[in-house]
């Protein structure tokens, strides 16, 4: 997966978690939490969905690395390079 694929994937997962999320004007450098009003339970669901789909284990201490779309791409790129 490319970085663009990964950010698309994250957006798709969030859309599935919250069908009212508004992705217009989403800034990939800014925290998803603030822009989409997500909470820790929503983040857990993003992590769980990644685990379910790609068998990726993300420990709790790494959750901050999923803060923005760009940081998601950076963190997940090595794990998803063969997908």
């Amino acid at each position, binding site marked *: 997966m490319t970085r663009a694929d990964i950010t698309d994937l994250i957006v798709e997962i969030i859309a599935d978690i919250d069908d009212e999320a508004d992705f217009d004007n989403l800034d990939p450098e800014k925290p998803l939490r603030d822009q989409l009003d997500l909470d820790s339970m929503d983040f857990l669901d993003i992590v*769980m969905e990644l*685990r*379910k789909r790609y068998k990726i*284990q993300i*420990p*709790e201490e790494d959750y901050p690395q999923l803060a923005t779309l760009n940081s998601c791409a950076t963190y997940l790129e090595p794990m998803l390079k063969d997908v």
Partner: protein
Amino acid sequence: MHARFVVIGGGLSGLAAAVRLARFNENVLLLEQHSRVGGLNSYYYRNSRLIETGLHAITNYSERSQRHTPLNRLLRQLKIRREEVGIHQQLGSAVRFPQCTLRFSNDFGLLQEEIERCFGAQVDGFNRFVAHLDTINPFLATPFISARQVVSTYITDPLLVDMLLCPMCYYGSSIENDVDFHQYVILFRAIFQEGLFRPRATIREFLELLTDRFTAFGGTLRLKTGVKRIVTRNNAVAALELDNDEIITCEQVVSTIGLDETLRLLGETDHRPQRGQRLAFSESIFVVQAGVRQRVPDDTACLFFSAHHPFIYQRPTDAVDFRSGVISLPFNFNGLHGDRDTLEIRTTHLANYDLWREATTEPERYRRLKESSVKQSRQLAESLIGPFADLILFHDSFSPLTIERYTGKREGAIYGSPAKVKDGLIGYENLILAGTDQGYLGIIGALLSGVSMVNNHLLINHQPSPTRED
């Protein structure tokens, strides 16, 4: 049979736990001893009419836009849309003592006005108390603190202290004459600050929604499947032995049947200090002609009352204590039951389990006790909300024994053990508890308990990152 995850108990906390597990894992099995799910919040049929066993109202009403409220978070976690539930707000409720009545609604401002009207001198203390509640995180595991004592440091009129305690006791306290302060905070927010609603349909459709979600995620539900024994090896659960002697091996177990009930399956008893006796309740249900709407208040969904001050919330010395209770008018919700020709009026009181148990030695005596309790409860309700006896089509009632028989809650204690295990851990590495005995309350509390225990113990990976090693 082997299952990776087994959830024991198909009540609301078990269903929620099972939905969360199945959403992200394969091979999840939910076991329910009865032929129906729901536990304390289920239903049955009498005279071809569906009757709910527990639901008066659901707490924690919030608007759709308030994304971080318990209700909206819970619905997202369970992947249920608000429209699927159908959320109908109460038309108001009240706490009534002989000296005064405090009305409240889903607008917290009403309660504040009512306190100003009846307890002018207490307004300042009440506002400081509410401000204090805002600073509390009630979900931290902490030892018991008396809510009565905390409230009394802010509010000096003992009548108001009692009136603010009464609904919290009836909607969730497992201990006598008090509430654990952290549970009080949860209940105060749930009932007074957020408010009450009912789903569009009955508890049956709500349960079907959860069950459908669970099976759509690939989970397996087995009804009429009671667990006889939890088989352990080296402080871990190895298998479950069912009532029919079948053995199910498993990796992780979530028990939602209660602390004492789980310990019993483990062959243990609880040796921790107990806080008083288990509290039991009796409930009467009157199915009445729709004309009752013209007789009883149209702005009261739940009436919490006490005929006496001080308010007494303890195991009664008689079979039922009629001096206080809750009257539920499930039709007093916005847009509900307008098209029905029959409606329900429900009453709840504290009961004494041992006296009901004793009465069962003679079926006739038990039947007479049930009938006289219904009659007294009805007369009391009529004195509070107006006469309706001539409109009753039929009635039914639950004693603590009915509750124990159908829900497995020992001694009919709907709010469970007086001692709570807030983190859900009881010393086995692959067994967690969820439900009533974690200190979460009501329907939303039961669902949240199932969700949080599974999230915290089974979904979040607390292991340190392997990549940090290099």
